[in-house]
């Protein structure tokens, strides 16, 4: 028995070094964020100013909340292409309730969240019950929600002119920091707790790690999957409300493209697109990397077109390091 356990000991030593590499991506992402921050601070005196930092935080909020939401779905091994346009639909519904119908602001917020949850529920049902690939189901939802936004709003922006308080949801400030930033951080903390400390989160990981094994463990896979997409929808609804509040209007033509930025943030943060791994903290770091880059490059007067190119390269590098990490096993 003695030599055998010794061999097992060797095995563990070797393997635990790989375990450490599971956190490599997150550390790498965090290190990149620091390097970018320091680099831009040195390159331009305007970067590290309070107002600019607040600007970065504010510009991360909407994409950050979206990315947090889509993290849930990506952890299950799925994908959601509809978050950008569903977010817009949520803004529009909030606008309809508050500005068209003149109902109180809380009802408008409720409408926005409910719209998001409903769209998520439909996505989840298509994936779980109709067995559509998530890519296709959410691609359909992307088009449907985009169209609905335009139809409902009559293709025109809905302004919240009669309700100045609505703008305060995102743009009111404490110590010069807009509420939107606090909403973002609050959402992130709640999402992180859900993902790591509750049964929904644990099942999300289980589905992403091995859906068939989860099913054969007696887990009602379909039900939980629908639940997870619905939960994601709530975050998308929240992003829609923050977006509408920040712009003081629901812009039906906006939204497309946000889904890819959200997915990019998740991927840069080290969440694997094949599911079963990932963290909200990583996603937030990913979202910040993207907005720091955008902001920093703008301050350095690098044209916006180039910013897109750089972010594209970052996404490719992030996924490639993820692949390298996997091969290391």
């Amino acid at each position, binding site marked *: *028995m003695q030599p*055998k*356990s010794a061999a*097992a000991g060797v*095995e*563990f030593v070797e*393997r*635990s070094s*790989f*375990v450490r590499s*599971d956190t490599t991506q997150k550390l790498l992402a965090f290190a990149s964020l620091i390097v970018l921050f320091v680099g831009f601070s040195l390159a331009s005196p305007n970067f590290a100013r309070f107002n600019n930092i607040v600007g970065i935080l504010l510009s991360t909020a909407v994409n950050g909340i979206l990315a947090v939401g889509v993290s849930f779905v990506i952890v299950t091994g799925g994908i959601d292409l509809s978050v950008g346009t569903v977010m817009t639909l949520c803004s529009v519904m909030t606008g309809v309730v508050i500005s068209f119908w003149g109902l109180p602001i809380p009802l408008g917020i409720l409408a926005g969240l409910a719209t998001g949850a409903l769209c998520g529920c439909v996505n989840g049902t298509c994936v779980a019950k109709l067995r559509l690939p998530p890519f296709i189901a959410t691609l359909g939802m992307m088009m449907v929600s985009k169209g609905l936004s335009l139809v409902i709003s009559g293709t025109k922006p809905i302004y919240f002119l009669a309700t100045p308080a609505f703008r305060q949801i995102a743009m009111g400030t404490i110590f010069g920091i807009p509420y939107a930033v606090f909403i973002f951080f609050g959402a992130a903390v709640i999402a992180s707790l859900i993902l790591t*400390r*509750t*049964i*929904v989160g*644990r*099942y999300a*990981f*289980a589905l*992403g*790690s*091995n859906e*068939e*094994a*989860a*099913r*054969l*463990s*007696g*887990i*009602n896979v379909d039900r939980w999957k629908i639940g997870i997409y619905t939960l994601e929808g709530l975050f998308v609804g929240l992003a829609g409300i923050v977006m509408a509040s920040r712009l003081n209007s629901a812009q039906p033509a906006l939204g497309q493209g946000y889904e890819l930025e959200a997915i990019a943030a998740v991927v840069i943060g080290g969440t694997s697109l094949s599911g*079963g*791994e990932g963290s909200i903290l990583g996603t937030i770091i990913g979202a910040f990397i993207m907005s720091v880059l955008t902001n920093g490059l703008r301050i350095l007067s690098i044209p916006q077109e180039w910013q897109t190119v750089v972010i594209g390269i970052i996404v490719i590098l992030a996924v490639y390091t993820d692949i390298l990490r996997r091969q290391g*096993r």
Partner: protein
Amino acid sequence: MIPLFGLYVLFPTRRNFAPLNIFIGREPLKAGFVLNEKQLNQQAQELLDRMNLDLDPRARVGDLTVAKQQMVEIVRALSFQSEVLIMDEPTSMLTDSEIQELFRIIRELRAQGVGIVHISHRMEELKQIADRVTVLRDGQYIATVSTEEVTIDEIISMMVGKEIYETARTSKLDVDSEVILEVRNLNRSREIKDVSFELRRGEILGFAGLVGAGRTEVARAIFGADPVDSGEIYVHGQRVEIRSPHDAVRYGIGYLSEDRRRYGLMPTLDVSTNIAAAALERFTGVMGWLLHAQIQRTAQAQVSDLSIRTPTLEQRVRYLSGGNQQKVVMAKWLVRNCEILIFDEPTRGIDVGAKSEIYKLLNDLAESGKGIIMISSEMPEILRMSHRIIVMCEGQITGELPAAEATQERILQYATRRESIARQ
């Protein structure tokens, strides 16, 4: 010549027409990349004619019967001008008349000078079609004999070998103990044919048979992992409807799959989550909050009880050895406290030390009053562990032996018995 487009990828074979299947990857082409359909059909027809096969080259392979699909496969093999043809269990999916048709073709090929290796576990068939028989056992060559000079019993004894295996257990089972699982007339397409049996409290019921006998299919059907065509399942005498593993687990049935990596483990998750996976809802407080300390305590108890070797409970199961992974899957069902446990090849790919630990665990579980179905392709294991042995062949139960009467020879006789041929 390599076609421009990977036709392998473009056309899933069963959707396609027979000629494309036959010449896939080597299609006659026009101008280097356009499919020459006329020539293709012509070449296919020539081959079909050579075999005296009545097959429309324009039929989609997916629409043909299994037998006809197999003919297409054979024609494809012949299109390589093969001199040797290796057929692995070609008759396993065929009906009697189809088998006779296949044998006619095999004889025709033999007359044309093609050498044929026919892999089969059907003894009667070997007598019908083979000139010589080679016996392999556990990857080792045993002997080659002329079919005419050997009896089926002699072949079976070569398959069994002369090693001394441990003797059967002395059955300690109380024969009057409660029947906790009863399966009546289970049917599922061609895979499960009219399977009925009972499992008692405290019993280890061995399921023996050759690979492909339908044992795993029966297990998955009982567990609700695959739908069934007909059949009744009773748990503690109560008729139950099991439509999904979720239902089965609710009725106290646990299933340990033969392929733990694919069906048993969540490789990227930690040991404690994997152990708690089937009972997670029990460890949940308000708002779905997980009771972390309880999960850890339960997992820790299983890790020590089953001596699962892992550095911590947070270790991802992917990094455990095969034996320890298997114990994690077992622990999952123990935590769920299932009364009826189906263990499908529980010691596959596991080192000897872990094996004997698992045997001990199985015995302990049976003694504690659980009913265990153990599917195993290892004869010594089946003989050593089971109170009673059910033997399956081609989806049917072909025999049932109490441990005291079971021998390798008798199991193999049942395992290679094909009802329809045996009756002739």
